[in-house]
């Protein structure tokens, strides 16, 4: 409906007679709103709760959300932005478009000490390369081995658009530091393709286009739960794994700011948290949340992370470093 309405705004002569109560508009990434993602269930649960309409708009992937927010500025149609991650919060806050959340976050479990008055964390995970153990036998045991001493082909996501792609960039940076460009150049020789989002990368991998795909340590739980197979495994690396906390925030120009805050509180309460592990395949921030059984077998690796201030300061240089290496 929103599409239609927006399209009509520019053609006022057609717009007469169209009016409805504003739904709560939430910008998020595509896999969140897909039919097997958490979006539909959370939407249904919240709508039953609040007697209102929730409208998810799915963009390519997480980083695209930040770009979209920059582009739309104060005119944004969104009430909530959901799906940025901890690395991007400093940069997003600089836009001065967000309101404080006023949600009590004291009882939440996170991979590292983290607190913010604007962003509400709703789930987290560790990036990992997932492989099919029936097809791959020499699995690297470190990122260094994957880059310099392996012949596995990989697919990953574009760090300019996708938070997993950005996660890999930060992971490479935290492991290789100043030698990251060299590592990218070496890795590039075995890259099948760089996709705009997580969904595309993962489906290409499942069609057999590559040996490994960048995803999360918890991704195998999906296949164990729904396909009853443990052939997909996450490679655990000795350097540690880069962590991602997924966050949501309210836009200060929202015309239903209280409802939006209420939604954020809902997001970290049991009804929503119970949905997330089994649909988004990430760790819930509430320990008491229901999780598919397969989560018990998931490894909890060492956490690597940069502060979001460091990311904000260096993101463009690191992106250019990647771009130069990946286009050769």
């Amino acid at each position: 409906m929103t599409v239609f309405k927006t399209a009509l705004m520019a053609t006022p002569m057609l717009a007469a007679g169209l009016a409805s109560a504003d739904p709560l508009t939430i910008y998020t990434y595509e896999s969140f709103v897909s039919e097997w993602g958490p979006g539909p269930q959370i939407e249904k649960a919240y709508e039953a709760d609040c007697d209102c309409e929730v409208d998810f708009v799915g963009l390519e992937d997480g980083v695209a959300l930040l770009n979209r927010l920059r582009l739309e500025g104060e005119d944004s149609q969104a009430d909530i932005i959901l799906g940025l991650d901890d690395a991007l919060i400093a940069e997003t806050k600089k836009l001065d478009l967000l309101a404080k959340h006023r949600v009590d976050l004291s009882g939440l479990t996170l991979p590292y000490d983290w607190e913010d008055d604007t962003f509400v964390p709703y789930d987290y995970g560790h990036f990992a390369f997932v492989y099919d153990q029936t097809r791959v036998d020499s699995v690297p045991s470190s990122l260094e081995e994957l880059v310099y001493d392996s012949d596995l082909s990989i697919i990953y996501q574009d760090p300019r658009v996708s938070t997993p792609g950005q996660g890999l960039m930060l992971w490479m940076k935290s492991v290789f530091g100043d030698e990251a460009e060299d590592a990218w150049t070496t890795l590039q020789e075995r890259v099948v393709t760089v996709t705009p989002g997580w969904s595309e990368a993962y489906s290409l991998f499942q069609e057999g286009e590559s040996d490994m795909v960048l995803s999360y340590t918890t991704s195998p739980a999906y296949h164990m739960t729904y396909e009853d197979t443990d052939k997909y495994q996450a490679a655990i690396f000795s350097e540690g794994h880069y962590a991602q906390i997924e966050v949501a925030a309210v836009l200060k120009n929202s015309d239903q700011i209280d409802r939006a805050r209420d939604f954020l509180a809902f997001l970290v309460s049991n009804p929503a948290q119970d949905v997330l592990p089994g649909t988004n395949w990430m760790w819930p921030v509430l320990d008491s949340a229901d999780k598919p059984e397969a989560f018990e077998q998931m490894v909890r690796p060492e956490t690597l992370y940069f502060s979001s201030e460091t990311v904000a300061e260096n993101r463009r240089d690191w992106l250019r470093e990647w771009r130069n290496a990946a286009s050769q």
Partner: protein
Amino acid sequence: MIAGNRLLRRLGAGLLWLTLALAALGMVLHPGGGYAWASYFDSWLVRVIWFSIYQALLSATLSLLLAWPFAWALSQTPFRGQWLLAAFLNLAFILPVLAVVLGVVSLFGQNGWVTLPGTVYGLPGILLAHVALNLPFATRLLWDRLSQIPDHQKRLAEVLGMGLRHRLRWLEWPLIRMASGPVFVLIALLCFSSFTVILTLGGGPANTNLEVAVYQALKYEFDSRAAMLYAVLHGALALTAIGALGQGGLLNMEAAVRQPRGGQRGPSPLQWCAILGLLALLLSPYAALLDRALQADWHWPARLPDALRTSLGIAVFSSVCAVLLALSRCLPGAVRTRRSRWLDFGVLVIPAMVLTTGLFLLCLRLGWAREATWPLIIWVNALMAMPLILQPLKARIQAAHSQYHRLTRVLGMRTWPVLRLVYWPLVRPVMLWALALSAVLSLGDMGVAALVGQVDFVTLPLLIYQSMGSYQMTLAAQMMVVLLALCASLLLLAEWARGRYRAGR
């Protein structure tokens, strides 16, 4: 009459100048927020420029090499019904680029009819799609050029007992060589400005051209300074290439495309081979696309009706704009000043995406990005269609003018009756044809909508692109069939209008 003419003419020219000026202003005033200039000139930019040129030259070479034998065979003797083949070759130039892209993926992709040794994404896919798009165009132009060998020369060759080899050497080769230069530059230029093909089939940062770089700078990094820089570089390089061809050469190309004379006899066996080979080559992507679409039940996404409505709305408005604009450029009594020639030329050669970028940056700067979506897409689509419909409209209006101008003057008819009784009946069929053609072009456009469209803005090609992006190829193919059916019905309408026009002549 004269006053009305002048008004419309001035309005048209004024709007074109304004567009160019605003686009330039947008480039200068871009919303900023960029980084130090020096930081943009890195190895990636070199790679992007190199790839833009490299793939364009390669695509043009391949298209030409393939077109030579077909054009040569077809031009041997005029044959009955050759206008039909010519019309088909023209058609390939108008249909949505995305259809060819999807066709190539359906043909050579993972589950396609032919499996490539590597993946179709990357340079192979780009070249295949560019050849599929430009081979008909190249064949058409070369065929036309070769058909211009005067009959007496052909007879002379016969009398002299020239064999195939000698005829090729002395008669045909010089013409092919002469015509190939401009055709090569033209196709290279089209491929240099290719957007949809490279965005969808590029598959990663290694295969990016300047036009896609503009898009990525805006959409991926929100770096308007980078977008501006890449767009300016793109425009400058395109203009340089035109300089290499020369303005005269380009105008010659336009004049060269004429309706070929048909012959009395059917095609020779050689020509049959060429016709069937050409049809097989050009239709195979569409056949693979259709095959792909039929592989699953038709299951429409919820956003399809919205996308259809938006696409049709834009097509209607932009085709009306295109026709009005074209009319304003060809009204009788216009003095062809050097300035106005430059204007037509400028609109023709400045890549549409460069114009779009300039205008969009201006809207961003003014905070109108959202409101400007529809007007911007409509206007740029109209600008893109205008040069293609200008010539036939112009010819028709000038014919009407020279035939009836004195009569209406003698009769002392006033403006309105002259328009209604003299011009309208004569111009109407061509106008319907022009409307349909511009609508088809606008329906198939993805680049402008992708660059300008906001998050919840979706046209049919954008929706198809999104499903391609999630590798839902069957769904994409099904929606493409819908788009092609729409285009086909519009083109049939156009043909019907043209048929009536021919009958009425």
